[in-house]
């Protein structure tokens, strides 16, 4: 069973729809007993950093998720804001992030030519391998990005893939059981479904 974290933020139904399409058992929840049983966890996120952290704390999920992820090594996939919340902090807000991965979220520059936010279909310009999480994914796969802030990691080895918007930035991160994607696989047609399926089926 895949659990989608319900913390009052995010296009949660999109994930339910996607996994239902894949015939994979999925549940939207914020209950401890559900998350503790989950084979995989997805942390969605459509919102701002401070509000995201505020909501996680409101539901007492920050400590629970940290324990499940860092101690019990439950595989977790952070999507968009969900990915950024896993970092130390963000330029978007004042709060501290979950701190599972050293790094911060930085703003794309305010540049007339670049015109933030990064909004649209883009591909992976550089990626390490097309095994396990990226099985069957190539440079011809496009994903939908929608963000004004990007992930800046302290440790390069955790950068699993990069995409280009003004500069190359980290579009997929991985640290053992912790995965993060900046784009929206739940809304990236077939390419996204392939990735969501890989996350569920891969050996971790």
């Amino acid at each position, binding site marked *: 069973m895949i659990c989608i974290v319900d913390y009052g933020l995010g296009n949660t139904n999109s994930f339910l729809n996607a996994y239902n399409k894949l015939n994979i058992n999925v549940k939207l929840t914020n209950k401890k007993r559900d998350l503790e049983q989950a084979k995989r966890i997805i942390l969605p996120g459509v919102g701002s950093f401070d509000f995201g952290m505020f909501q996680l704390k409101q539901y007492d999920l920050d400590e629970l998720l940290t324990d499940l992820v860092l101690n019990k090594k439950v595989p977790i996939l952070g999507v968009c804001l969900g990915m950024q919340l896993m970092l130390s902090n963000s330029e978007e807000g004042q709060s501290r992030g979950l701190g599972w991965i050293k790094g911060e979220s930085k703003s794309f520059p305010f540049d*007339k030519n670049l015109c933030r*936010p*990064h909004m*649209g*279909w883009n*591909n992976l310009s550089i990626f390490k391998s097309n095994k396990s999480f990226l099985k069957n994914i190539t440079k011809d796969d*496009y994903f939908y990005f*929608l963000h004004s802030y990007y992930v800046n990691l302290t440790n390069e080895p955790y950068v699993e893939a990069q995409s280009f918007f003004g500069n190359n930035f980290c579009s997929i991160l991985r640290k053992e059981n912790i995965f993060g994607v900046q784009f929206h696989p739940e*809304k990236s047609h077939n390419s996204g479904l392939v990735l969501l399926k890989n996350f569920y089926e891969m050996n971790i």
Partner: protein
Amino acid sequence: MIQPRIIPVLLLKNKGTYKTVNFKSPRYLGDPINMIKIFNEKLVDEIIILDIDATVNNTFIDDNYLKNLASQAQMPACYGGGINTLEKAKKVISAGFEKIAISSRALVDLPFLKELVRQFGAQSVVVVIDLKLSKGKYSIYTHNGKVLMKKDFLEVFDEVSKYAGEVVINSIDNDGKMAGYDLFLASLIESRALTPITFLGGASSLQDLKIITDFNNYAAAASSLFVFQGNLKAILPSYPNLKQRADFFIGDR
């Protein structure tokens, strides 16, 4: 590389899809759920759904219907129509939409716009500006083209551009006429745009969609072009495929 966006727009009225001309004479097109399903199968970049009666009638779509609409889209979807509280915005996002579109309310209530951005992030907040040309001057109209906004349109555009993640420029004069986009308006906006711009109103052919390559950070949105076929305007949803996009140099992927 990021690809330019081509976006079908569906106008909602009483849970039906309609097409207008100059924001008038709505013509019934079909069931929205079905239309989104069809566009989804055509792998559209994203979709915009606007309830054109919501603000005027002070109504808001019910949760279940919202979820049903969103569930058909395996691509990003934007919903607008009568969003005048944070609660409504939240319902839209959790139903499965990635962006909320606001028009009437955002243009007159900047603190509300700022609050939406604070909670949902600029990337999810789209401001829609409906414009009419009169005596050589563009004016903003709210409430589905019924109420003239006295404030200077460029001043309002500059203000909302500081907060919203995307601005939709909708030409009431060109709406449903299928006589091309207002390119003068497109140039006027381009010079002062701070965000991606989505241009809507008048697209008549794939050729017109070239605004996405001719203008910096422009997305081409259209309603009539993607729902009508032929001179008699038969209802038949369509969308350029990859080959057509390549042929017309309109951003293939």
